[in-house]
């Protein structure tokens, strides 16, 4: 037994010594495309490779869930030492693969189950959505804000709720009209859903879909919008107010450095979970990199007022103050701070409490102000 272990360690050592490069491999769920989830992961991969001279990366795109295990087999065979699996649906394949290859390090995006050699990670937008909601509430003249949503899963629901809480904090009577398109990528559906919302009076838009279609459509009718996942300012320079931008590279670089330094080993990842937010710089609020709010819209937002704790404050100042707070190492503000009831009147987060990580990850209820079908809504 000990002998085998010795051989294994030797083999492992040899593999590591080879050119001294660490080989990290990425499994993507969709095509890299131009704007969405997989594109952002790929940007992160490239930035990590540029930043870490000892890193070598490989990727494979459009891997259906059922095929993740054979892909893991291949990657391991080709000498991958770290495997990033970038979709929730890979969970079982990752856990199975981790058991099969105990010396390979796995990291599973949006995952919830860990193992000695499986870590989980996520860069989440809910704070940014809340801030964008504040801006949307201030900019909407009709009091109707459109949300073109992909699939009714907790991540999307959490973002709709955070956004709606923001909208309502500025305009307590505003509505967020939600339309599900049941697709992560479908420009035609995104376009027509946006048109439907425009016809119903929505004049500010946000969305979860992997293209800038909603932005382009809204801009044609002069409606404001918020970019999603990657900078989308260039698609409508006069109408994109802000947006959510992800920096997966921050997580990838941190993780891979720790692997290289020996902090993370295939034995101690059981508790390694990144749920990284504004304070970790894993996400950014912005119409473009470094542009939190499109300068063209700053005057409007400065003029708009909202009530916070009985006092009138400018919406722009409020957004900036909260952004600064949530970017600081010890944020005091959290959008999901009670008391929060759902749209049916059930108390979901008690007064003075913040939503726990688990509550965030399993959020099924709809915030007051959300209008539209809500599959899986708790009774």
């Amino acid at each position, binding site marked *: 037994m000990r002998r085998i272990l010795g051989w294994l360690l030797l083999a492992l050592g040899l593999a590591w010594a080879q050119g001294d490069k660490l080989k990290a491999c990425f499994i993507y769920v969709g095509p890299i495309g131009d704007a969405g989830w997989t594109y952002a992961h790929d940007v992160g991969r490239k930035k990590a490779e540029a930043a870490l001279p000892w890193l070598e990366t490989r990727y494979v795109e459009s891997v259906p869930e059922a095929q993740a295990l054979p892909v893991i087999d291949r990657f391991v065979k080709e000498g991958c030492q770290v495997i990033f699996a970038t979709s929730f649906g890979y969970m079982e394949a990752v856990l199975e693969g981790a058991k099969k290859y105990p010396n390979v390090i796995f990291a599973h995006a949006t995952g919830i189950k860990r193992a000695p050699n499986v870590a989980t990670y996520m860069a989440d937008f809910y704070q940014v959505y809340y801030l964008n909601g504040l801006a949307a509430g201030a900019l909407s003249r009709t009091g109707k804000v459109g949300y073109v949503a992909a*699939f009714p899963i907790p991540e999307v629901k959490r973002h709709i709720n955070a956004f709606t809480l923001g909208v309502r904090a500025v305009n307590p009577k505003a509505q967020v009209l939600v339309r599900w398109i049941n697709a992560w990528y479908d420009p035609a559906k995104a376009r027509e859903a946006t048109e439907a919302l425009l016809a119903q009076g929505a004049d500010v838009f946000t969305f979860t879909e992997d293209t800038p279609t909603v932005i382009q459509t809204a801009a044609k009718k002069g409606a404001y919008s918020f970019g999603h996942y990657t900078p989308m300012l260039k698609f409508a320079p006069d109408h994109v107010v802000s947006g959510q931008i992800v920096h997966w590279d921050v997580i990838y670089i941190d993780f891979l450095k720790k692997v290289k330094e020996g902090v993370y080993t295939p034995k101690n990842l059981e508790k390694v979970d990144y749920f990284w937010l504004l304070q970790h710089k894993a996400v950014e609020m912005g119409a473009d990199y470094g542009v939190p709010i499109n300068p063209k819209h700053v005057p409007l937002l400065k003029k708009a007022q909202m009530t916070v704790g009985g006092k009138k404050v400018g919406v722009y100042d409020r957004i900036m103050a909260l952004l600064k707070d949530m970017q600081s190492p010890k944020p005091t503000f959290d959008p999901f701070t009670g008391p929060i009831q759902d749209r049916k009147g059930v108390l979901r987060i008690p007064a003075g409490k913040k939503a726990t990580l688990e509550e965030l990850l399993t959020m099924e209820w709809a915030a007051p102000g959300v209008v539209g079908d809500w599959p899986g809504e708790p009774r």
Partner: protein
Amino acid sequence: MRWELDPSPSPRKVLLTYALFLGLALLGLGLLFLLYGVPPLKAYALLLSPLTDTLGLAEVMRRTIPLLLIGAGLALAFRIGFFNIGAEGQLLMGAVGAAYVALFLPPGLWSLPLMFLFGGSLGALWAGLAAWLRARFGVNEILTTLMQNYLVYYLVVYLVAGPWKGQMVFGFLYTDRFPPEAQLPRLGDTLVHWPTLVLGMVAAMGLQVLLFRTPLGFEWRVLGENPEAARYLGLKGGRLILLAALLSGFLAGLAGVGEVAGIHLRLLEPAQISLGYGFTAILAAWLARGRPLGVLLTAPLLGLILAGGDALKLALSMPFRVVDVAAGLLLLGFIGAEALSRRRLVWRR
């Protein structure tokens, strides 16, 4: 100069035309690889690489299973002139049926047989509906089956996002995992669910016998080759077509059961359940030239093209579209060769 059918092409000519067209297809692919900066020979080797190790063979086999089941049924359906291009939807119906049995009926030894029976029946019902609409209202089945694919897509989304959503799935669009009794055994640690493979082989052989050795098969062949003659003989066209539609739908349904009970072990977002098998199987059926037994050869061939394309995309970090390009070019090669080998030029009027 005339261009006409060659009643009996010599084997040498057939071989030559296939070599010519496949050579052209490979040349086209090679050019593309060169454009991408990949040495063509390496790429060709990768395309065939699934044949060289057990991991690759398992991948080929896994894709063969649904292609075999669906392809055998489609070979029959096409032969008699029922253009079922809704196998993808019928497969999903099978998956729904399997999930119902697995999740809502008490588990036991009967689970798997019941899943196959129920899933297959739903698939048959779905295809039968198109055949009935054609017989009753004259609705073209190409349109019906194509539209039905979308209907069942949304049915599955509705089920996994609503009433069937699992308790243990953290809000994602899945049902709960099937109980162990409702999971198909696999070969070793591969994803090859062998009982479905056996079913597929039995189906191909059974349909072949049915088509070429029984009175029903004779009627089917007459109807397919000469509908006028069939009418003259007093054959009931509508009923014959319905029967073939039911059979091909049933087999597609079985394929769906295999995918969820053998690989996914749950019902999930429809785009993840099938990898377009319903469409690829059309090609398997055609390459088999209307002989269900031939699908035993063509399904693995297509499985190899798909698995080889995947090996390419993985080994070279190429965009996933390389699979489509490789499949499209190679298929056009086969199609062209098949057509050309059956013709000849005659130097007279």
